[in-house]
């Protein structure tokens, strides 16, 4: 985990891993991501009896 540069965001009461976030609007992942739909992922995970691997990111 790369957290060596936790920086305060201006006007944000949170921390970001500096420069770890990347925009990459159309990167081609080799994994079948469900985009922005937790209920769908939850239902699929229950049906397939596997856990969810979630990536929480921001397009900074």
């Amino acid at each position: 985990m790369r957290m060596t540069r936790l920086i305060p965001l201006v006007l944000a009461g949170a921390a970001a891993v500096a420069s770890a976030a990347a925009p990459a609007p159309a990167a081609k992942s080799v994994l079948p991501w469900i985009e922005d739909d937790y209920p769908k992922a939850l239902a699929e995970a229950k049906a397939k009896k596997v856990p969810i691997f979630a990536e929480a990111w921001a397009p900074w």
Partner: protein
Amino acid sequence: MRAFVFTDKALAKHARQFVWLSIDTEKTQNAAFAAKYPIRAWPSFYVIDPNREAITLRWVGGATVAELGKLFDDGAGTAGAAKPGGALARADKLYSEGKYAESIAAYRDALRAMPKSAPSYPRAVEALLFSLSVSDQRAECVTVARGAMSTVRSTAAAAVVAGSGLDCALALPDGAAGKAADVAAFEKDAEAVLADPKLHLAADDRSALYGSLVDARRDANDDAGARRVALAWVADLDASALAAKTPEQWTALDPNRLNAFEAAGQIEKAIPMLEKSAQEFPEDYNPPARLALVLLKLKRYDEALAASDQALAKVYGPRKLRVLAVRADIYKGMGNEGAARKTVEEALSYAEALPAGQRSESQVAALRKQLGSLEAASSKP
């Protein structure tokens, strides 16, 4: 991560281990997820047990392909476990729940109980350093990093351990016992990590180390040394940009390159870079948002405002507050205090209207304070 790591074919074999969920935390539709699983740093990765809707493993920040493969295997094992097993599982559980201060003792127990050659050792050290860092236990962070460095020196974790150790040492009060020696030792470690071609560190990791090294030189009032490191940082990232295989990879370097250019006193070099990214990804608000900041720093206010207009037209979620903050500063630079105040008012209204999971009370309080100061200043004769 999205541009460099998740595109690696070596990860495809893990596809069936999980249902894969990508959450853009800026989107309103994901506010409920963020409220349910609070995010302390970006990016964050979670393994979630779907039956209990509970996080069973959390990873903060970037990771190499090898680290991700290990994390997938560890994570697949944790989900569904009714009771946590050993000391590491107990520590991971606390860490996953965001109980960082409580996880410190648990990780110490876990590390004492495992051989230093254990595959999970570097991950446990990194988690302990993160927990110490966010709990402001800087001296302890230095001690742990110092002790772990020799064990992780030849692994990808070396970047985190050296960088965390250096950041924590720099955050110690001036005159703290041993501070200078600790800073010097971690600087040496960080330089060695950067020079080791076998570590194959990601550009993000390398940049974090360069940034810490610049901070260290500045802390020592060594401007020439800081500039030397910053120029090396710029050259390193220029090489990464040249080696980028896709426009996504090239643009993903923008925030690091912007930091490096600024540290080297060459912030104007960010302008053509950001213009290229804006052209490549016209829907992305980041290039114009960053361009507005760069032009503000260069006091080219009219151009900065034009870039801010473009960013505002595209931005969404909490990030809009950052764009508005830069915009208020642009107006202040122009001497237009009224427009600056109106922009802060707009930011405050926006911040107050954000849904749970995205709304930050400290953010709202900071904006109210800022607005109060601006109003007080404008009412002075």
